[in-house]
């Protein structure tokens, strides 16, 4: 296998080694924010006279090669920044290092702020969406600004409920989205048992979502990739911010030092005083509840061509409460990640990135009821090494290749009454390698082809994943795109929509093959009017060999590993529309999704009298035919701004009980046992979901020490009692149905000081 991998990589690099004319010049460097020195990812840069351009990569680096000598106007643009223009003269054979600093809008107001289709081309690649940190902080959010809640507003992305920040992308379950923080896998990125994500908006620089048809650079998940990049830290001055909220408070500080920059951001729940008051009057209030997270980054510029960084994240949730007499529960869960990266400009044509990552997820619920303890311990350790190369042999090709290898250890142990009842430890090495070529045969065409190879030692699986996308520019305002990809997934998440604190990951193994699926995407990206963007995407995807914990297994003791799972299949298709207003005092977007997703598992959703138990396709709960989000923000004055989010979605699927019976003679226990009979699983729909959230912000000063902002929010402004699910009470005869509702109206306030 090793020989095969070496050949694979050698093939990729071999393609890249081509002779080029020595009299051509090149220009390269980093594109940064002039105020903070933060690198800007996917910023556009071009030489106007010869219409040659590119965009900065995930490290903020750009390179334009094979330029005929001469004098040109170098232009760089990025959303929210002023256009950068500079005359450059390139001599034959010259390699000009030019770092570009873009000035944020609002600093020099008389300057024209350029926000055009060209600025967003990279962000609007097929299947891709980008969320700005400004939007995350601006849109109304329940208790805390949240990356995931903001992402859920995009077409194709759905939330399971008000209580879940899980990402259901294009009909996939949350485990089908690879979540990366500074290129490190995060296994349970939630706080407050799933209510919001662990990513602290103060620390986040860039959030990009590949909803589908994602490139060969990424792998390991059937559906999508969410990549979060933390800030590098301010390279010009020491700055900080403090934000006080009802649920949690945040503080961050960042600054330069002689060889680079640093950043530290902390967030901690501040509910303890509220709980202390509640404890006086209300039963079953937790005697312990907190969560925190810490993000840090240190950048070291070793030389002009070498940049090193060390990033870490640590977050924990802990809750403990007694209930009734002689019973208690304690739950601790969290993640820790660390990554170190070396980015090197090897030449004007070759850029490399080496990354070492470590990720730990732990989940430790403990119950004690009537003197009998129950304990569970689920831990994941994932240590990996990544190497990526980007090579620009000529103006038509951009090659990239890389490997990602690591050791994944999963431990899952159950103890009951001080005795181990289930103990499973899986340790597997994994290795993936990819090669990708972006070919621009003409100005109108862009063809990206790639191949990814993935291996997983546990079960001895090797899989190949071809990827391809084609883009054709019909005119200055319209681009047509198509993509295909095959994707494999070696992990599955055991989760409960209502509560992510008990999430467990399991892997493939002998008898448990990896899931796989194909994705087909068609898209049109248009600019109907100046300052507006209108995108259409169509997708169809398959899901095969889906493996998930069999819900009918309540006791895993004594079962072989493959007996824990049920194996199924699924598909999803849909249409996404996205209209965005990019300029002016009124900004925002309208996102609409028409989506269908189905699953099938043997024996599940079978006809009740069908003893062969042939499973039938059914919609999972999160299947929502229509989904609409309208996000708008308006700058009322220099001090006041407002934002609103309106969401509408088809009611979620649920199963309507049709008949009932009773078992009175079960030879143990005291009570009657009731049972429903149902027809098609999830064939009924809850009432439609809709909600309006409002936010008002007022900017000011904090005792001349810094800028300050009050934010007032009203979640669910007209207090729509959206339904989460129906509860059936068998104690009543006939059975009574009651609504379990989602969030009522919730006002909140926060105060932030930037210094």
């Amino acid at each position, binding site marked *: 296998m090793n020989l095969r991998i070496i050949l694979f990589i050698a093939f990729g690099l071999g393609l890249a080694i081509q002779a080029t004319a020595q009299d051509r010049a090149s220009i390269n460097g980093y594109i940064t924010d002039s105020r903070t020195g933060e690198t800007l990812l996917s910023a556009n840069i071009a030489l106007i006279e010869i219409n040659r351009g590119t965009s900065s990569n995930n490290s903020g680096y750009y390179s334009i090669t094979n330029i005929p000598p001469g004098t040109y106007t170098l232009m760089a643009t990025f959303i929210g920044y002023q256009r950068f223009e500079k005359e450059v003269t390139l001599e034959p054979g010259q390699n000009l290092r030019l770092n570009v600093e873009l000035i944020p809008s609002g600093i020099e107001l008389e300057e024209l702020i350029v926000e055009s289709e060209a600025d967003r081309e990279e962000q609007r690649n097929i299947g891709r969406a980008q969320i700005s940190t400004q939007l995350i902080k601006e849109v109304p959010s329940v208790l805390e600004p949240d990356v995931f809640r903001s992402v859920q507003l995009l077409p194709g992305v759905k939330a399971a409920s008000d209580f879940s920040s899980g990402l259901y992308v294009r009909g996939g379950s949350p485990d089908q989205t690879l979540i990366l923080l500074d290129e490190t896998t995060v296994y349970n990125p939630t706080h407050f048992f799933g209510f919001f994500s662990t990513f602290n908006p103060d620390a986040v620089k860039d959030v990009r979502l590949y909803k589908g048809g994602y490139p060969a650079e990424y792998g390991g998940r059937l559906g999508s990739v969410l990549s979060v990049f933390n800030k590098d830290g301010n390279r010009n001055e020491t700055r900080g911010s403090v934000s006080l909220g009802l649920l949690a408070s945040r503080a961050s500080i960042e600054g330069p030092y002689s060889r680079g920059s640093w950043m530290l951001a902390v967030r901690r729940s501040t509910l303890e005083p509220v709980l202390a008051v509640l404890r006086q009057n209300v039963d079953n209030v937790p005697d312990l509840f907190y969560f925190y997270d810490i993000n840090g980054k240190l950048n070291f510029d070793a030389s002009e061509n070498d940049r090193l960084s060390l990033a870490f994240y640590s977050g924990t949730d802990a809750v403990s409460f007694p209930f009734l007499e002689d019973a208690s529960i304690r739950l601790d869960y969290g993640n820790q990640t660390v990554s170190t990266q070396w980015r090197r400009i090897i030449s004007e044509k070759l850029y490399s990135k080496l990354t070492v990552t470590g990720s730990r997820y732990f989940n430790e619920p403990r119950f004690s009821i009537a*003197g009998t303890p129950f304990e569970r311990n689920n831990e994941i350790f994932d240590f990996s090494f990544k190497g990526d190369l980007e090579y620009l042999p000529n103006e038509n090709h951009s090659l990239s290749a890389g490997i990602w290898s690591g050791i994944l250890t999963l431990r899952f142990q159950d103890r009951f009454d001080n005795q181990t009842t289930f103990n499973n430890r899986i340790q597997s090495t994994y290795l993936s390698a990819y090669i990708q070529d972006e070919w621009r045969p003409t100005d109108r065409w862009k063809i990206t082809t790639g191949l990814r190879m993935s291996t997983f030692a546990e079960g001895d699986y090797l899989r190949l994943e071809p990827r391809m996308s084609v883009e054709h520019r019909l005119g200055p305002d319209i681009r047509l795109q198509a993509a295909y990809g095959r994707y494999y997934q070696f992990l599955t998440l055991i989760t409960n929509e209502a509560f992510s604190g008990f999430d467990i990951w399991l892997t493939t193994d002998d008898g448990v093959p990896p899931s796989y699926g194909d994705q087909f995407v068609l898209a049109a990206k248009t600019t109907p009017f100046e300052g507006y963007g209108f995108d259409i995407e169509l997708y169809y995807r398959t899901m095969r060999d889906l493996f998930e914990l069999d819900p009918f297994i309540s006791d895993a003791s004594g079962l072989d590993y493959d007996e824990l799972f049920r194996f199924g299949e699924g598909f999803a298709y849909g249409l996404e529309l996205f209209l965005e207003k990019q300029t002016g005092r009124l900004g925002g977007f309208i996102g609409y999704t028409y989506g269908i997703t189905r699953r099938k598992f043997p024996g599940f959703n079978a006809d009740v009298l069908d003893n062969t138990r042939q499973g039938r396709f059914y919609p999972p709960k999160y299947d929502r*035919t229509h989904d609409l989000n309208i996000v708008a923000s308006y700058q009322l004055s220099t001090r006041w701004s407002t934002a609103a989010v309106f969401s509408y979605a088809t009611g979620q699927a649920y199963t309507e009980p049709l008949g009932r019976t009773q078992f009175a003679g079960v030879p143990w*226990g005291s009570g009657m*046992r009731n049972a429903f009979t149902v027809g098609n699983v999830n064939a009924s729909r809850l009432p439609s979901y809709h909600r309006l959230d409002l936010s008002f912000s007022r900017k000011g000063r904090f005792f001349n020490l810094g800028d300050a902002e009050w934010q007032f929010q009203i979640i669910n402004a007209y207090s729509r009692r959206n339904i989460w699910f129906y509860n059936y009470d068998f104690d009543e005869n006939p059975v009574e149905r009651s609504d379990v509702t989602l969030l009522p109206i919730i006002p909140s306030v926060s105060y932030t000081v930037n210094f």
Partner: protein
Amino acid sequence: MNRLFLILPLLLLVTACDIYNQDEYEELVVVEAYLIAGRSLPDIKISTTLPVEREYSFENAALSGANIQVVLLDENGNDEEVFGYLSLTGRKGVYRPQSTTHTILPRRTYRLDIDFNNRPDVLTAVTTIPDQVQITNAVRDTVIYQSDEQLEILLAPTQKSQTQNIFVFDTIAGKVSVDNLTPFYRSLVVDGDTDLSDLIRNSSGLINEANFNINPDGSILLKYPWIGVAFFEDNQVVTNSVDRNLTQLIRSQDVQLGGSTLSPGEIPNLVYNIEGGIGIFGSISSDTVQTFFKRP
């Protein structure tokens, strides 16, 4: 190409007409029978399901006119002995065996056959009786509640009728009163909405054999968890070994009530293992010991 992009969304919408609809209530025949090793043939109850919006009582759902027989099968699956059933006078839907002499045999397979004089349904089911459970140690007369010395039970080796034995432990209280409840169960009754009567027989739920220490000779030593003790003082502790049908029925019923990884509102049918109808034709074997849980 422009036209293609206009046509494709329309095509998708047209072809996407959702044919997955909510179906209607269907009346099903329900059978309920539990065979217990070492005991005589049980009564069998036959009824139908009722629409969920109707008030339920067995009397309203009971079915008359059933022809029932239970057949003891030999090791080749052929009929060895047939036991007829008759409708019990005055109790519609309850059928009693004509034989009072036959004792249910452990490790043997029985088949249930039902048809009706007045409806077309035909039901069949089989169960294999678990091997006889035997508690072989001398259980202590008195155990101090939540002390270090838990009640220990030693189960004799058994032959498996499924991949592994599945057990349920049942604690049957001798003296039922609120004052006699252990603290946790007392708060369930006093502070919660649990009826005292629901705790008279306090059961453990289904437990796989692999949860316990299995000795080299195949016997199983288990320490009885304190959570099983709802009342102080005299209690009978029953160890039941449960067949596959009953195991699947109870586990699937727990799932239907929401105790699994399924999303809230995603309700599956129970697993019945009956052809032509629903319900349970299950079996157990059991053994009982007596002890006294003393207040600490």
